[in-house]
């Protein structure tokens, strides 16, 4: 069954009133993979994801999501995917539990609502009306509704916006558990640490094109990037950028005969690499 990719996109194009939003994207996401799509606002991220979700029509290109063209997908297909959108509201006067129990009825084989409520950390809020939830709690509810139908493929559009750091880490644990269970996940996010922590592969989209596509560790040739070595010499900060930090440290260790004062070695973070890629492509 899992011979084809979960998401298979070839030459996807979409423009609005003559302005190109997506300019010919190729993308393949394997079953079970966690894929993060990064890019500045207006780069074509949302357009791409919404075409994959079946919300928008494309101008050209081939798109298969779970083997089916989302442009003419039916409800069975919708039962196999889960979507966490940005900015969705509604059902404000229902309680958390009422909303989740109701949405569970839509799916042929929904998860146990109680389990889902616990999984997203809303146990203490099950009787609270949706309108009384905080921004972060609403986002947890969105996530709960997204995973309720045991999706094979889960779309997460900036899922942790409004989360405090602790909630974000709890969310990462949840996503890892879903991934371990075999769920394919397509994530968009502005948090580079989130992408680095969760994603098997990262795609950077800028001006409607994918400009880099790799694992977080190798994105944009990160692993070959120069390292910056910092240390103190007579209390004065020293800094040298090198392709061979190990050799430099060995030399310094010999020079200092042991501990190198204030030693630090930095490589560009995923965020540095991302910003460089965006800068080069806009």
């Amino acid at each position, binding site marked *: *069954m*899992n011979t084809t990719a979960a998401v298979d996109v070839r030459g996807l194009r979409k423009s609005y009133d003559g302005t190109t939003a997506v300019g010919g994207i190729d993308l393949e996401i394997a079953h079970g993979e966690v894929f993060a799509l990064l890019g500045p606002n207006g780069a074509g991220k949302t357009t791409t994801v919404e075409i994959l*979700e*079946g*919300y928008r029509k494309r101008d050209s290109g081939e798109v298969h999501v779970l083997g089916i063209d989302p442009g003419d997908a039916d*409800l*069975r297909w*919708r*039962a*196999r*995917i889960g*979507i966490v*959108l940005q*900015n*969705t*509201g*509604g*059902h*404000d*006067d*229902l309680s958390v539990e*009422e909303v989740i129990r*109701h*949405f569970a*009825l*839509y*799916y*042929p*084989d929904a*998860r146990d609502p109680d*389990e*889902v409520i*616990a*999984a*997203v*950390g809303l146990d203490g809020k099950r009787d609270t009306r949706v309108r009384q939830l905080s921004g972060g709690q609403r986002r947890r509810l969105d996530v709960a*509704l997204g*995973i309720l*139908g*045991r*999706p*094979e493929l889960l779309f997460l559009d900036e899922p942790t916006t409004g989360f405090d750091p602790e909630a974000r880490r*709890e*969310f990462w*644990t*949840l996503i890892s*558990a*879903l991934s*371990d*269970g*075999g*769920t394919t996940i397509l994530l968009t996010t502005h948090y580079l640490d989130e992408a680095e922590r969760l994603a098997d592969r990262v795609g950077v989209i800028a001006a409607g094109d994918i400009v880099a596509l790799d694992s977080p560790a190798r994105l944009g040739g990160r692993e070959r990037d120069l390292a910056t070595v910092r240390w103190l010499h007579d209390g004065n900060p020293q800094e040298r950028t090198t392709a061979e930090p190990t050799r430099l440290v060995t030399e310094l260790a010999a020079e200092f005969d042991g501990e190198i004062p204030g030693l630090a070695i930095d490589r560009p973070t995923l965020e540095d690499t991302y910003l460089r890629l965006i800068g080069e492509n806009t």
Partner: protein
Amino acid sequence: MSVTTDHPHTDPHRTAPPSALRVGLARTVVELKLFFREKGAVVFSFLLPIALLGIFAMVFSNGELYEEAASVDFVQYITPGLLAGGIMLVSFQTLAIGIAMERDDGTLKRLRGTPMPPLAYFLGKIGMVLVAALAQAALLLAAAALFFGVDLPTGPERWLTFAWVFALGTTAGTTLGIGYSSVPKSAKSAEAMVVGPLLVLLFLSGVFLVFTELPEWVQTIASIFPVKWMAQGMRSAFLPDEFEPMEAAGSWQHGPIALILVAWIVAGLILAVQTFHWQRRDA
């Protein structure tokens, strides 16, 4: 946060999503909860006709309207009109505002992203309107009969008239409300763009006053729209036969009422099908 590691389905022949009818029933329950938990909706669409009836009964004396139909006072005359107005508030106003807001806040988009059958959404709206409109009519009639001395229809024939006018009126208000929900461009403008025009229409249609006292040109304009015919149909169920000649046409006009309401239902249906969308246009 944690979930038990249950494996997602990879079997393409897994069971189909639940039927539209079953989900539609569940949506009806949800829609009713949402409607009755929203205090504004309850006061300004559900209870408004009953409050107005009380005000009319207190303000206007119980004098006869016409010598020829001495048993009909203003409160007796206005009760069927308020029934028609109430139907429009619960169906047209609730749906036009509610759906416009659900489109604006992303509720519709979210629903579209689930395997909920689209038909179930509309069944839920229809079910909600039906239950709320019936409950409202029952309350209004109970209040009218118990507190304000209004005579309720006698005999199955008149109740049958009430039934078909109620059914056609509710259906017209429902399809037109769904269609009109695409007119306001945002949730902010929805209330003003729905309540204002509807209120004017209710006035022109003789829901709050005696229709034949309106200037003739106003009567002509009102005759284009469904509310005038709904009110007239309700009067034919509630007022005695000696009142029939007092109507604008000198007759209850059951044939034209049915025809015009059906025409509006069809128009509303076409409008709804043509304009309904699950996402904001600008999104």
